[in-house]
């Protein structure tokens, strides 16, 4: 399925400065794997050493958090938008 993955500002430097990436995937897991294969540096920012998604990063399919869907197994439909939403605190410090 062709889907769009939106890259948040703090991670754009590791994704070739793109704000979104188009790719083919049937599930969220496949989409993220495809993304991190294409942009290796992104992997350590999204995943901890044990392979789990970092807990300060949330993944949404359209406007739903995948934690409340089927997580990595969430099915994607054509035209879905996968958003990566990390916590930000802004400004100085």
């Amino acid at each position, binding site marked *: 399925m062709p889907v769009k993955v939106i890259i*948040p*500002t*703090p991670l754009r*430097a*590791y994704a070739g400065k793109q*704000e979104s990436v188009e790719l083919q995937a049937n599930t969220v897991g496949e989409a993220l794997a495809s993304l991190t294969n294409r942009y290796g*540096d992104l992997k350590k*920012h999204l995943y*901890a*050493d044990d392979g789990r998604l*970092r*807990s*300060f990063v*949330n993944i*949404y399919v359209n*406007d*739903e*958090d995948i934690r*409340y869907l089927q997580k990595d197994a969430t099915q994607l439909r054509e035209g879905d938008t996968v*958003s990566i*939403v*990390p*916590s*930000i*605190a*802004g*400004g*100085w*410090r």
Partner: protein
Amino acid sequence: MATKTEIPTQPAVSLSNQEILRYSRHLIMPEVGMEGQLKLKQAKVLCIGTGGLGAPLGLYLAAAGVGRLGIVDFDNVDLTNLQRQILFSSTDVGRPKTEAAAERLRNLNPDIRIDSYETPLTSENALDLFRDYDIIVDGTDNFPTRYLVNDACILLKKPNVYGSIFRFEGQISIFGYPDGPCYRCLYPEPPPAGLVPSCAEGGVLGVLPGIVGAIQAAETLKLIIGKGEPLVGRLLLLDALTMRFRELKLRKNAECPVCGNHPTVTKLIDYAEFCGIRGEEAPARPSTVPEITPRELKARLDRGDDLFVLDVREPHEYQICNLGGYLIPLGDLSRRASELDSSREIVAHCRSGKRSAEAAEFLRKAGFRKVTNLKGGILAWSDEVDSAVPKY
């Protein structure tokens, strides 16, 4: 949706003729009217942080006639603040922010009560500070304080109007609303220290906190007058570069340690520790790369030593000022290390010394034997060697 933060109107409170004139544009709208304006007059809002977000927030809440405003900030006004912290003026540089803010807001609206708290917000003072207020607005700039504000609001059952920014992106939501999610439902754990870029690498479009802070003010006013749909269970995302707003659904996590069905956090914790150690990586260890101070570098260059100065900043920083170094941005270093001659002695520098330490460590691991890091970066060079080099 009936909001549960509505301020019940007490019969004794009324508006003077002056106030009626001042707020006439509110009063002639049925959504506000006398009833709404009286609620505003009796409302008590605490603003945590009076910086980029706090500026429009304070101004609009004061303008709207919120009867009591509290401002918490322990910082002084700095020149670099004036790019976005529009509550202050050039003559305020060096003054405590709460003092300058209170003065400006009183000039705008002398009828309201403004209390300044020139103190850091801590686990020791947060609960006492929050108790007197109805609504807390989070305009802070660091993760430990965000978790502190969140937890204190949950424990005291007060809504937390959240806003945050990074470069061109903003997030706004309301946490701590009855049956709504809290910050920890969204982000159970903070990023490890050092993973999110600092101000030097991050930066922010000055007007962005202006937009986000104004949205926080709007949400606060809506909570007070009990009208409209508040951003509860909704995360509003703004990308100012594309000027697109998106909205994501936020759910209350039944397992949330603070606001869930079986809370395990029942009092405030050590948030610095929470953000430093609970983060998935250990705090950054001190660099093992040898360092050279700006004075030492200058002396060696003057002597004619054959040194290769490597600048690992970004091209737009090079345009601000540079030492004539060879520019390879840190993010490109692994790809372009072959441009460097490992037989030469390399001195790596950046703005403050952090990125260049990473670069130097990388090069050493890649087999470059003679790499040192310029301690304190170009900022230290400006301080110690050549003050004509601008600091930024």
